[in-house]
């Protein structure tokens, strides 16, 4: 059997801590005991392979599931799923969910006094292609208030869920929009301690991906942990 891939732990530095007191919900939900740092066994180095299961092309178009067009600014969100070495992660499940253009989620617990859109459900998914590319068509989500502190508003965002090749590459994150005036006030965005790392959660406006007369484009590349290069890779 070939040797197991080797993942460094350096990437973990980019993540927020569990306890980030400005985000109130972390106070009772973060472990007090130190984590036990474990070696990477086959269990962490394997993971679900979804292949082409039941993902349909229309699942990547969040505007196509109602009787008519949803209200709001139509956008294209696309990018590549890569690892730390810049290698494409092909055929990997990407899942997204988001508020509608008014900042309201289609969810029983969302009590924000903003209208639901009968033509917008807010969920999408796709598989990355051979070059790690993904693309969604959707509506630009609105900012929304939340109860974290007085006059708290989340910057507009799209939730992203990524798998990559194994258990330890799993990532759930949020994609933000460039130039959002709410960034300085958002404790979730600022839970990421490093400013450069925070920037990696912000999509950039992409004129190339903008479809004339139809939708603005945004580019969001996502980088997951990746294995060190193996001697075999050097040799080819």
């Amino acid at each position, binding site marked *: 059997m070939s040797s197991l891939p080797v993942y460094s732990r350096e990437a973990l530095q*980019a993540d927020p801590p569990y306890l980030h007191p400005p985000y109130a919900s972390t106070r009772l939900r973060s472990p007090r005991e130190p984590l036990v740092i*474990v070696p990477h066994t086959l269990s962490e180095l394997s993971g679900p392979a979804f292949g082409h299961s039941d993902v349909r092309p229309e699942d990547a178009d969040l505007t196509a599931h109602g009787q008519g067009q949803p209200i709001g600014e139509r956008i294209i969100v696309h990018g590549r799923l890569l690892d730390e070495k810049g290698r494409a992660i092909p055929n990997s499940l990407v899942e997204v969910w988001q508020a509608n253009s008014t900042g309201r989620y289609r969810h029983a617990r969302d009590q924000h006094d903003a209208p639901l859109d009968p033509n917008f459900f807010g969920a999408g998914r796709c598989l990355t292609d051979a070059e790690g590319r993904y693309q969604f068509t959707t509506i630009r989500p609105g900012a929304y208030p939340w109860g974290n502190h007085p006059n708290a508003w989340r910057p507009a965002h799209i939730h992203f869920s990524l798998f990559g090749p194994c258990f330890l590459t799993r990532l759930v994150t949020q994609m933000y929009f460039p130039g959002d005036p709410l960034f300085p006030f958002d404790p979730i965005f600022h839970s990421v301690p490093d400013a450069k790392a925070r920037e990696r959660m912000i999509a950039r406006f992409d004129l190339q991906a903008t479809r004339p007369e139809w939708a603005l484009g945004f580019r969001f590349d996502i980088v997951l942990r990746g294995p060190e290069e193996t001697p075999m890779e050097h040799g080819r």
Partner: protein
Amino acid sequence: MSVTPSQTVGPYFQIGLIHERWSSLAGNGERITIEGSVLDAEGVPVTDAMIEIWQPDNKAFGRFATDPSTGRFAFETSRPVSMGPDAAAHLCVGVFARGLLKRLYTRIYFDPTAINGNDPILSLVPYARRPTLVAVSTGDRRYRFDIRFAGEGETVFLEC
């Protein structure tokens, strides 16, 4: 290149992430049920958590939310088997929730004697805390496994 940082799943993950097809884990062999609660630092049930189960011995995957009123969960899978001479049979568990800025990782073991064995992960855990990683048999192929974020009986969480 540098990795994209983690952010919380927030309270509305059901919209995009919860599908009936992942509510139990595929697999042949003896079917077992694991049930429990997710609890916060004060022991209050977490009614908006998401749990993912990765079963490495048969490559099964499951994902479900805790009950929105009780914080309880239950899922079915095939009894895991050991994958190596020292490795004790286990499931890998990822927990996500509002208030969790990144996934919590823990494991569910099934053999109560594993805490005295040579499992490469379990043997790194302080002895007194190892039982938090072992599901309690409640008979009839049923097990109980609670996930406590912090406080009394805090679950051991792992960093990989």
